[in-house]
C-alpha cells in the first residue's frame, strides 16, 4: 500500500513527457556538437591554406608538443615492450615457439600497441593541455586581446596546435616503437642470452612494409583528431573557471574515444586493401 502511494507520488512529480524531453535534448545536444565540430574542422582547413603562415608558432608548438613528450613516451614504450615480452614468453614456450618471441612482439608493437598506447598517452598529455590552455585563455580574455592586436586567434592558436600535433605524433610513435623493442630486448635477456644482432635481425626479417606504413599513416589521423578536439573544446569553452576543467576533461575523453574509432576504421581499410 505504502509502496503504491510512493509510486503514485513519483508519477506526479515526473512530467508525462519526461523521457521524450530527455531524449530530445540529448539528441539535440549531440547533433549540435557534431555540427559545431564539423564547422570547426572546415574552418581549420580554410585557415590552414590562407596566409600569413605562422611558421614560428608551429615550430614552438612542435617543440612543446613533441620534444617535451619524449620522456613520457619513452618510459611508456619501454614498459610496454618489457611487459609484453614477459607476458607472451610462457604461452609461446608451451608451443615450443619461443624463438618467435621477437617477431611476435615487434609486429604487435609496431602495428597496434605502439601507435594506440602512444596516442592515448598523447591525448592525456597534449589533448588535455591544449584544451585547458585555450579554455583559460578564453576565460581571461587573452583570445579577445589577440583579436584586438590584429591577430587571427584561430590561425595563431588552433591551426598551429593541430598541425603540430598531427606532425609530432607519428614521430613520437616511431620513437616509442623503437624504445618498446629495446624494452623487449631487455626482457628477452632477463631469462636468456640473445645478442642484439640476432634479436633485431629476427625482427627485421619478420617485418614487411605493409606492417609499418599503415601503422604510421594512421598516427597522422590520431594526432590530427587529438589536436583538433583539444583545440575545439578549449576554444569553445564556457567563460568561467569551471569551463577550463570541463574542456580539459572532455578533450581527453573525446580524443581517446576518437583514437579507438579511427583505429577501428584504419584496421578495416588496411585489411580490405591487403585482401
Amino acid at each position, binding site marked *: 500500500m505504502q509502496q503504491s502511494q510512493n509510486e503514485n507520488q513519483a508519477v506526479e512529480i515526473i512530467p508525462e513527457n519526461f523521457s521524450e524531453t530527455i531524449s530530445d535534448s540529448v539528441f539535440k545536444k549531440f547533433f549540435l556538437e557534431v555540427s559545431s565540430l564539423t564547422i570547426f574542422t572546415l574552418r581549420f582547413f580554410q585557415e590552414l591554406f590562407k596566409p600569413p603562415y605562422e611558421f614560428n608558432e608551429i615550430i614552438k608548438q612542435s617543440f612543446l608538443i613533441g620534444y617535451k613528450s619524449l620522456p613520457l613516451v619513452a618510459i611508456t614504450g619501454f614498459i610496454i615492450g618489457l611487459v609484453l615480452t614477459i607476458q607472451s614468453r610462457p604461452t609461446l614456450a608451451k608451443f615450443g615457439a619461443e624463438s618467435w618471441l621477437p617477431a611476435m612482439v615487434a609486429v604487435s608493437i609496431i602495428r597496434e600497441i605502439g601507435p594506440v598506447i602512444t596516442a592515448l598517452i598523447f591525448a592525456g598529455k597534449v589533448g588535455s593541455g591544449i584544451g585547458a590552455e585555450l579554455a583559460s*585563455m578564453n576565460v*581571461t*580574455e*587573452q583570445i*579577445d586581446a589577440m*583579436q*584586438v*592586436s*590584429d*591577430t587571427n586567434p584561430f590561425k595563431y592558436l588552433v591551426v598551429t596546435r593541430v598541425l603540430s600535433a598531427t606532425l609530432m605524433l607519428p614521430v613520437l610513435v616511431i620513437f616509442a616503437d623503437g624504445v618498446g623493442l629495446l624494452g623487449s630486448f631487455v626482457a628477452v635477456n632477463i631469462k636468456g642470452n640473445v645478442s642484439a644482432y640476432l634479436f633485431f635481425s629476427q625482427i627485421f626479417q619478420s617485418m614487411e612494409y605493409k606492417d609499418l606504413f599503415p601503422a604510421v599513416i594512421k598516427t597522422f589521423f590520431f594526432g590530427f583528431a587529438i589536436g583538433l578536439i583539444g583545440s575545439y573544446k578549449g576554444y569553445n569553452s564556457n567563460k568561467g573557471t569551471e569551463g577550463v576543467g570541463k574542456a580539459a576533461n572532455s578533450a581527453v575523453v573525446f580524443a581517446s574515444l576518437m583514437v579507438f574509432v579511427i583505429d577501428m576504421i584504419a584496421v578495416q581499410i588496411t585489411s580490405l586493401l591487403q585482401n
Partner: protein
Amino acid sequence: MTANVNSIEIKNASEQNGYVVEMKHLKKSFGNNPVLRDINLVINKGENLVILGQSGTGKSVLIKCIVGLSDLDEGKLIIFGKNVSDLTNKEQIEIRKKIGFLFQSGALYDSMTVRENLEFPIRRQLRSTPKEKINSMVLEALKNVGLAEAIDKTPSELSGGMRKRLGLARTLILKPEIMLYDEPTTGLDPITSREINNLILDVQKKYNTSSIIITHDIDCARMTANRIIVIKNGVCAAEGSYSDLQHSTDPWIKSFFE
C-alpha cells in the same frame, strides 16, 4: 599627480571636424534578451567619457562593438567619420588599429614574459619594425607605467596593479587615438586604483586620446570623467558632468553617487 579634469580643455565637436566616435540607435540582443535597446552617444576628440550603469546593462558589450569583438544587430557606428558597416574588412582592421582596449582582467599572455607581451602587438601590427626600434618602444612603454624593472618577469609574478599597468602599457605601445577601458580599477585597492586613474589622465594629456571608461568605481568616474553617461535598461538614461549627475533629482541616478 592631482586630478583636475576641468583643466583639460575639451573642444567643441564642431571645431574638431566631427566626433571621434558616434553611435546612432545601436541595438544588440543575446537570444531573446535585448541588452542594448537604443544607444545614442558621441565622443569628442581628447575627451574622457565615463559610462556608468548596473551590471548586465551591456556597458562592456558597447565597447566590444566598437573594437569588433561583438557584432551590432542594428544602428550606426561611426568611427573617425566613417560608418563601420560600410567599410571593407581591411578598412575596418585599419580603423581598429587606432583603437586600444584595456581588458578588465588585463588579458596578459601567460605563456609570455612582460617583454614578449609588449612585443606581440608591435610584431603583429607593425611587422617590418626593426628589432632595435621594438626594444626602445618596449622600454619606453614600461617606463611610462613604472614597470621597467619587471621586463623579464612573467605575468604570474606580478601583482594585480602591476598586471593592470602592464595591460595599459601593451595597449598604449601603438599609441592609439581612442582608448577603451573596461573596468580599469575593478579588484584593486584604493591606492592602486588611484594610480591607475592617474595613468588614465596622463595618457589623455600626453597623447590627447579620446577614451571611453566603463566603471562601477565612482572615485574612478570622479577623477577621470569629462562627461558621464548612465545606461539604464539598454538606453542612455542620463548625461552630464560628475557634479550635474551627483545633484540629479532622479533618485536612481543619485544612488550611484551615494
